[in-house]
């Protein structure tokens, strides 16, 4: 095996392969070479062993767990705990976790004057104390705990709150408010019916002492709810700011409602609006907003659309907006909305913005079963997708992507079908239009290959109508409006 082949295996193991062609090369290598397969397996043992060592707690006295619930147990310990309880053995089991040594896992930053701790409280009670693993039993009053990851948890008594690792905790009952800064992205608060995974945000979580129902409301950013009791297959429900969910002890959502718009509606900030109702001489496509971003049609033909006229882009048609690429590149937040019909069977590019190389780009596209926002920063491609049930021939669909604070939401026909704060493939941060760098190429219906190879350039391959791009993230109401009013732009209410 040569270095390139070894690196291919390493990169697969590290999750940094980004190109399907590389995966194909790796598969060929592994099929052909027993040595390569042996290498992959021996490195897997090293990976697993190191993961286990990284998990292993320092040899300090384990705290006594709650008698009601053992959060975050490794599998065998979870099963063991069941048997232990069933057989009446009083051995104590505590989950493995990060080092809970001298510095502890967290710090008790504040305790209100009226606070009282229960008899089974296991940890120090004084402000400023280091906290290791164990249970905080707050009968009344308030306490603020700062985890070493940076996550801040404010606790209202009565509450039972388990501290596990700098990134994991457990709320048996009571109410907590959580703020996880960037350093604590993916901080987890588990309850009986779910795990709330914080994606850099603020949320409040309350668990009823009797029913174990949880109420979670997000005031900023986004969380993922991993629904289902431990030991069952969990499904993930993103919950964004302004939404609240009630989840029962079995992990079923009982109520999901919007309390308010995530943020007062911003000025809509439309950058461009292309209705395609008329195509000028020489293929000029007018921007009907006041943005002045007229484009140039290449290889498309007018057809009847969802509102007035649309464009059939055929196999290789597109609209060139490159002379405005710099203006798109100023948008931190954005929304791209379009009506589409009969997109390509493979990948249908709706919008792309790049610096002329494939290494710095964002793209909004469709494939057979997904609406996708993708980006590349350097050598790694990543994306967020929303699943759909396909594209019925001849039917017009409204699709949209909106991004705020580098969170992404995807829609089809006014319904949210996906959201994320990180890429699904390799977990990289989402790029906004403004993070492309110095964009020089912008297209509707095309993603140009950097090497100029026509064979690798991607197209939309269908009919497109009423494309709108905003320099703000429209809220749900705005997206819904665009779906219900084809051809019209969203105007923020004042």
């Amino acid at each position, binding site marked *: 095996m040569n270095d390139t082949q070894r690196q291919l295996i390493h990169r*697969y193991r590290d999750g940094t392969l980004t190109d399907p062609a590389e995966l194909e090369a790796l598969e060929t290598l592994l099929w052909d070479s027993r040595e390569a*397969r042996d290498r992959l397996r*021996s*490195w897997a043992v090293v990976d697993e062993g*190191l993961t286990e060592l990284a998990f292993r707690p320092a040899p300090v006295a384990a705290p006594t767990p709650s008698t009601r619930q053992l959060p975050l147990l490794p*599998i065998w310990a979870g099963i063991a705990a069941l048997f232990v309880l*069933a057989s009446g053995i009083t051995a104590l089991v505590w989950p493995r976790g990060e080092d809970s040594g001298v510095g502890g896992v967290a710090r008790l930053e504040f305790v209100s004057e009226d606070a009282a701790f229960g008899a089974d409280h296991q940890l120090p009670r004084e402000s400023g104390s280091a906290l290791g693993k164990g249970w905080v039993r707050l009968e009344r009053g308030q306490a603020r705990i700062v985890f070493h990851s940076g996550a801040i948890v404010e606790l209202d008594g009565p509450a039972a709150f388990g501290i596990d690792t700098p990134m994991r905790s457990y709320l048996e009952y009571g109410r907590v408010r959580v703020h996880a800064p960037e350093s604590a992205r993916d901080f987890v608060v588990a309850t009986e019916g779910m795990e709330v995974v914080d994606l850099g945000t603020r949320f409040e979580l309350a668990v009823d002492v009797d029913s174990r129902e949880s109420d979670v409301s997000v005031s900023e950013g986004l969380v993922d709810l991993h629904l289902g009791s431990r030991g069952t297959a969990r499904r993930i429900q993103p919950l964004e700011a302004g939404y609240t969910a009630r989840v029962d002890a079995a992990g079923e959502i009982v109520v999901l409602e919007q309390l308010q718009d995530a943020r007062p509606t911003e000025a809509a900030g439309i950058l461009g609006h292309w209705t395609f109702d008329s195509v000028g001489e020489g293929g000029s496509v007018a921007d009907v907003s006041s943005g002045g971003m007229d484009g140039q049609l290449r290889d498309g033909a007018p057809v009847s659309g969802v509102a007035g006229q649309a464009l059939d882009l055929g196999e290789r048609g597109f609209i060139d907006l490159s002379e405005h690429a710099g203006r798109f590149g100023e948008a931190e937040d954005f929304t791209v909305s379009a009506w589409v019909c009969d997109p390509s069977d493979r990948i249908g590019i709706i919008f792309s913005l790049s610096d002329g190389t494939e290494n710095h780009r964002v793209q909004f596209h469709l494939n057979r079963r997904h609406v996708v926002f993708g980006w590349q920063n350097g050598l790694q491609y990543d*994306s967020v997708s929303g699943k759909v049930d396909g594209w019925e021939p001849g039917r017009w669909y409204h699709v949209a992507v909106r991004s705020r604070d580098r969170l992404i939401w995807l829609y089809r026909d006014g319904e949210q079908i996906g959201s994320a704060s990180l890429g*699904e493939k390799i977990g990289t941060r989402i790029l906004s239009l403004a993070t492309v760098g110095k964009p020089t190429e912008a297209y509707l219906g095309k993603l140009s290959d950097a090497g100029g190879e026509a064979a690798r350039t991607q197209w939309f391959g269908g009919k497109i109508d009423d494309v709108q791009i905003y320099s703000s993230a429209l809220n749900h109401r705005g997206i819904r409006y665009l779906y219900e009013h084809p051809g019209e732009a969203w105007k923020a209410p004042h």
Partner: protein
Amino acid sequence: MNDSPEPPPTVSNDSHRDFVRALARHEPAIRAFIRGAFPRPEDVDEVMQNVSLVAWEKFDQLRDVADFPKWATVIARYEILKHRRGLSRDRLVLSEELLDLIAAEAVDDHVVREHQLRHLEACLDELPAARRELMIAAYTPGVSIRELARQAGKNENNFYQLLWRLRQVLADCIESRLPNPATP
């Protein structure tokens, strides 16, 4: 010829305890087997969870608990394939057929994996302290390689190269400590 039916397997009062002991003892090597198919620890967790549940459901069919590691590894092989079928097509994961080959070739090597895991810690101790800590840090959940690279004053690509070298060093060290099959 004896036509009398085989007596049904029985579950002894100790079977719960036997199961927990066997799983606790052999879980690391079974996880390492699964890791050969899926690099991400999250996938390993999920497959291992399913292996545990299936193994428990069928534990009364296991006649000799000494056979547990191989038996559970066979279960893991099927759970790997099941898990692969459920993964998104967007993810860059090896094909089901290839995963089956990788798993099939290793299904009988449970003891080897146990030895390998046992030697890993000693091999890690042979690394300079800074390298040792770096390797552990790189595998700590929630730790960003980019951030580690920044702290180490390296760019991300060079940092990955370093991790790959160390991974190879550890694998070679483990290999050198395994009993030579040619030696009587």
